[in-house]
């Protein structure tokens, strides 16, 4: 069993990742809280090793379950997603706001891969383990995620927010 201190030390990372996933500070902390509670319940299943990767796995499971249950998450590939207007968010810095909005244009699955690799610095192998997905799929999601983010960010600087509809 991990110590409470070890768990406490991981909270800032979990919050950052959750913020990227949900795009919203309050929802991010809800997700972290649910993850911590799950981690404490499942603590006996943890074997000494990479606590961070284990916690991120917990978070992935909570995230998928919650959003599936609430119907708020759409797991279709982004090509099939309906057109959605970019929605105003509650904001911190300009950079964060812009990226937060851009990330929400990715499918949740793409967002998870991109954030784990680019933000959390997880290896491709660990990312595959955390998401319970074959590495080949992870790499192709990463390609799509990066390309999508590039297009969205490139577009964002050109078109005013109120006009923008992102497919």
């Amino acid at each position, binding site marked *: 069993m991990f110590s409470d201190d070890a768990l406490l030390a991981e*909270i800032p990372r979990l*919050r950052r990742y959750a*913020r990227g996933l949900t795009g919203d500070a309050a929802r991010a902390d809800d997700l972290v*809280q649910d993850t*911590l509670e799950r981690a*404490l319940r499942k603590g*006996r299943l943890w074997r000494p090793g990479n606590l961070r990767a284990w916690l991120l796995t917990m978070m992935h499971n909570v995230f998928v379950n919650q959003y599936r249950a609430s119907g708020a998450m759409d797991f279709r590939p982004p090509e099939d997603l309906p057109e959605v207007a970019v929605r105003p968010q509650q904001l911190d810095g300009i950079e964060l706001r812009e990226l937060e909005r851009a990330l929400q244009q990715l499918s949740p699955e793409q967002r998870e891969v991109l954030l784990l690799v680019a*933000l959390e610095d997880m290896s491709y192998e660990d990312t595959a383990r955390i998401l319970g997905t074959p590495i080949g799929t992870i790499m192709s999601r*990463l390609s799509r995620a*990066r390309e999508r983010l590039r297009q969205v960010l490139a577009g964002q600087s050109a078109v005013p927010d109120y006009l923008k509809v992102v497919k």
Partner: protein
Amino acid sequence: MPRPICEDDLHAWVDRRLDAARRAEVDAWLAEDPARAARVAEWRSDSDALRGAYDPLLDEPVPARLRASLERRRPMRTLRFAAVAAWMTVGALAGAGVGYHLGQSSAPDGDTLASLPHRAAVAHAVYSPEVRHPVEVGADQEQHLVAWLTKRLGAPVKLPDLREQGFALLGGRLLPAADGPSAQFMYENDGGRRLTLYLSVRDDGAGTTAFRYAQQGEVGVFYWVDGRFAYALSGQFGRDTLLPLANSVYHQIAP
């Protein structure tokens, strides 16, 4: 002959995970196609932007409600004091009561059996709230646990499996007891609620008793004697929840 450059190499390039040799090959390959190079460079600058935007979140103080979710397990400690206080009084009474009931409180065997639920409940109340050290030997060393306790108790110990009933083994510990060593196995369900099985070796060997139930404060105990061991299954559960668990334990460890 260099390996052909593939998409995975480009990601590893973006994520700065290539060794120097391969990086040089990828650089050379990218240099041949400016459009491709520009696209990959943008991937990298987007990743850098992500870090730049999100890293400051790491410095935010951890919100109180998240700290609190770690603290939530700790109320168990107050419970432990309550439990200790409860059997300081109840235990003495129950011990005497059960002894009276059996009508053999002076016989050594009667003493052992009469005090069994009390001892089991004490051990349950002391160890089950432990967050960090609930057991001495964890479930990951199950074989070692059984071999060790068998050696220390001087009789073959069996370890019941309660996973079908929703309780996973956490592990076990050796306990001191006036009449020789005893042992405790601990289990936990998905809700984090714990169940302990207390074992104590009886000197006189054979003999069995029916199930008996005792309520020790908030802890319910089913206890019985079977062959060389006296067993007690304890938990903060109602009698109806404990009974099928006790039945399962009984059937699994019957000699």
